């Protein structure tokens, strides 16, 4: 990346930050000076829509870490208004890819050999492209079909530049605003996740670890990694094919039962989270496929996470207390998981749990964290004085709500307690 590009990125981030600041803080300051009340949530809604569009425009222009930041914002309905979530969800969609010539040079430099030496054939058109990397199909000299995940050549530097710019913008914002949103911790969390995702050796280790966890379970497929052809920036793995997990009709056409597929999927993720304490934290439908034999293919271990000891038990106790409406146990479980209120008033936790349960279609918790319930949890946290939400819980909550979305697409429920083995009548 040359100096001009770096300057342009800094300029774009700086001017966008200034625009956002002027949308929110200038009118607020004017109102204070003129003695008018602060804008209501309804009055702020059109401002939120404009601001999120500005941010989306920046993301599509600069890509890289800005896309990742917008993706992260889109999953944090505990901190951002709904229009930000709706607009920035678009960042999860495919991103334009880099030309083959650029990719070829990069792969050859990484592997220390020509493409012809490393591969029997290499498809110039990528089969997928995302914020940090793109994936090409290839064939090894022994005939094995592989997927080659190639990090964008200058992404490491772009990430560093963008993170530096964003940290600056956040500090200026916090300096200017007497009651700032706590953006820096979010940024640091994002920086940590991006560093995980940019380290393909870590991703290979995570994939191997999950494959080992399920070595006795033939319902799970984790593509094998070709270590000899993988580096920190290039990852070569077994090319697997299957049907997207949300394609209900295709699943039925393969002679499989969506209920069974879902049961296996739930078992896999609940096992990782509750029993193993290590999980793939991004089970969106693009990362999950089903083979004709009914096996579940799990892809993309870039965002895999280790949970602290006792997290599974804490989460179980929370679900259990919600199921039995036991308020004392709810408070104990929320506290054990690391939630904290500003005032120390733990009744807030009960109110949050009740709000979540009201959003379930039966009005009570039956073992499923639906997207609506997770959204409600984060809405409640934003409105109530909860100052500390464990980031692991946010990530796990997102996993369960993604699984719930898949379950509903398949016409069933993502019942976590049932997946743990709580009696099935079948």
């Amino acid at each position, binding site marked *: 990346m040359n100096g001009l590009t770096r300057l342009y990125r800094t300029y774009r981030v700086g001017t966008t930050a200034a625009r956002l600041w002027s949308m929110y803080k200038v009118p607020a300051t004017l109102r204070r000076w003129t003695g008018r009340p602060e804008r209501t949530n309804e009055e702020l809604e059109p401002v939120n829509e404009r601001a999120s569009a500005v941010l989306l425009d920046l993301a599509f222009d600069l890509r890289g870490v800005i896309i990742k930041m917008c993706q992260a914002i889109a999953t944090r309905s505990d901190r951002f208004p709904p229009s930000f979530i709706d607009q920035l969800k678009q960042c999860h969609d495919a991103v334009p890819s880099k030309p083959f010539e650029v990719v070829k040079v990069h792969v050859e430099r990484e592997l220390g050999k020509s493409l012809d030496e490393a591969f029997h054939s290499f498809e110039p058109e990528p089969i997928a492209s995302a914020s940090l990397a793109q994936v090409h199909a290839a064939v090894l000299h022994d005939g094995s079909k592989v997927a080659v995940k190639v990090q964008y050549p200058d992404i490491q530097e772009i990430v560093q530049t963008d993170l530096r710019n964003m940290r600056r913008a956040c500090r200026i914002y916090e300096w200017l605003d007497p009651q700032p949103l706590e953006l820096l911790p979010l940024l640091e969390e994002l920086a940590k996740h991006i560093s995980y995702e940019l380290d393909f050796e870590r991703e290979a280790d995570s994939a191997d670890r999950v494959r080992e966890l399920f070595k006795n*379970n033939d319902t799970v497929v984790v593509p094998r990694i070709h270590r000899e052809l993988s580096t920190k920036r290039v990852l070569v793995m077994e090319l697997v094919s299957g049907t997207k997990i949300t394609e209900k009709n295709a699943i039925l056409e393969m002679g499989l039962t969506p209920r069974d597929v879902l049961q296996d999927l739930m078992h896999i993720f609940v096992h990782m989270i*509750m029993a193993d304490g290590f999980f793939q934290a991004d089970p969106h439908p693009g990362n999950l496929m089903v083979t004709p034999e009914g096996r579940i293919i799990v892809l993309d271990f870039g965002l895999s996470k280790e949970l602290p000891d006792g997290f599974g*038990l804490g989460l179980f106790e929370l679900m259990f207390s919600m199921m039995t409406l*036991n308020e004392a146990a709810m408070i104990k479980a929320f506290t054990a998981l690391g939630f904290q209120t500003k005032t120390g008033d733990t009744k807030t936790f009960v109110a949050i749990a009740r709000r979540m349960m009201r959003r379930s279609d039966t009005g009570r918790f039956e073992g499923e964290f639906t997207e609506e319930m997770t959204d409600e949890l984060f809405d409640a946290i934003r409105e109530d004085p909860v100052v500390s939400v464990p980031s692991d819980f946010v990530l796990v909550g997102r996993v369960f709500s993604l699984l719930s979305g898949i379950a509903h697409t398949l016409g069933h429920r993502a019942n976590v307690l049932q997946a*743990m*083995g709580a009696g099935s009548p079948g």
Partner: protein
Amino acid sequence: MGLCFVRSSLIGAKASGIMSESPEPGRLVYTPKELLSDGEYAEPLYAGGVLCHGGFESDGAYRPPRTLHRTPAIAAWQGQIGAGGGELVTISDEQVPPQYPSVDQAKLLLKAGVREPIVRALTVISILEGFGAIIRDVRVPDLKELLLEPFDGTALAHLDKGLFEAHARDEAGYRDQGGHKQMWEAARDLALENPTVPSDVFMRLMGDRGRARGGGDPLFPQLDKKLYRMLMMMSQVLVIEVFARGTFEWGIDVLSDPEVSAEPEKAGTMVRYIQADESPHVEYLRTGLSEIRTRTLRTVDGKTIAGREVVDGILHHILHRMRESRPREQRDDTRNALIAAVDAGEAKKSLLEDFDAMAPEWDRPERTGFEPQAA
């Protein structure tokens, strides 16, 4: 926090599973509120500082929760079956596999300071008890459409009108009242002095293999799906409850032993209370299944099938499977934990040999007692 009983003088008091006096003997129809009601207790039960269900009569006897009307109701429904020439479904004691580890094996480990397998076993029991609450989510089909004979004034008519809910609350607790989950935890914490729960408890619970899917093809595909699922669930829970008899005896024996338990009296008594609470579960489930057994079921293809054929078929299938799987799973769980302790140098190899030498033996009966009748 240790367990504290409101009335410590009542420790060891006889648990009374059945009310001595029924509000209205012979009555057959109840409201959900009645089936969930406790009536008055002289004293509540506290365990580990947590208010639990059930409580004490003025004479010191423990009375299980939600039995003011439930117990006489079940007795009346059962009487009706007998009066009509039917018989109650009975799973014989010989079908119940021995508990693994046995009482002697458990005490051997605890005396040797290898507590983890027992802590894990007690924790798994408490979690499984809590999972029992899922019975409230069983969807009861429109039985008027599916049964040929009337069923007013039966347990069947009250399944989703108080019986399933009462069962769920007993197992998992309800609102600020603890249930069996919390009571087993209290017994464990009392006897073993608030042990650390092993972090792999869910790993043991869920296993490391794929789940058996949906139980395979339905045994009776001609049955309405909801009815079939409900009968499967009732039968499965009944078998679990009957098998649990051995678990209670085991828990009482182990946790009441002053050589291995820090609070033998309190911990053992807590398990006795849970045992007393389970009696209505076994009774209402066998009553409901017996009522199905004496009736005729409509099938989805417009034909009929005898309830007896369905209930016996399901019970035979479940018993056959669980008699094999349960002892094996229990043995593997405990032995693997012990082997891990030996490998980690936390236990001597000779302990494993002594442990294996004490393994309970069991001659599994050839028949389940519910074999399908020859055509």
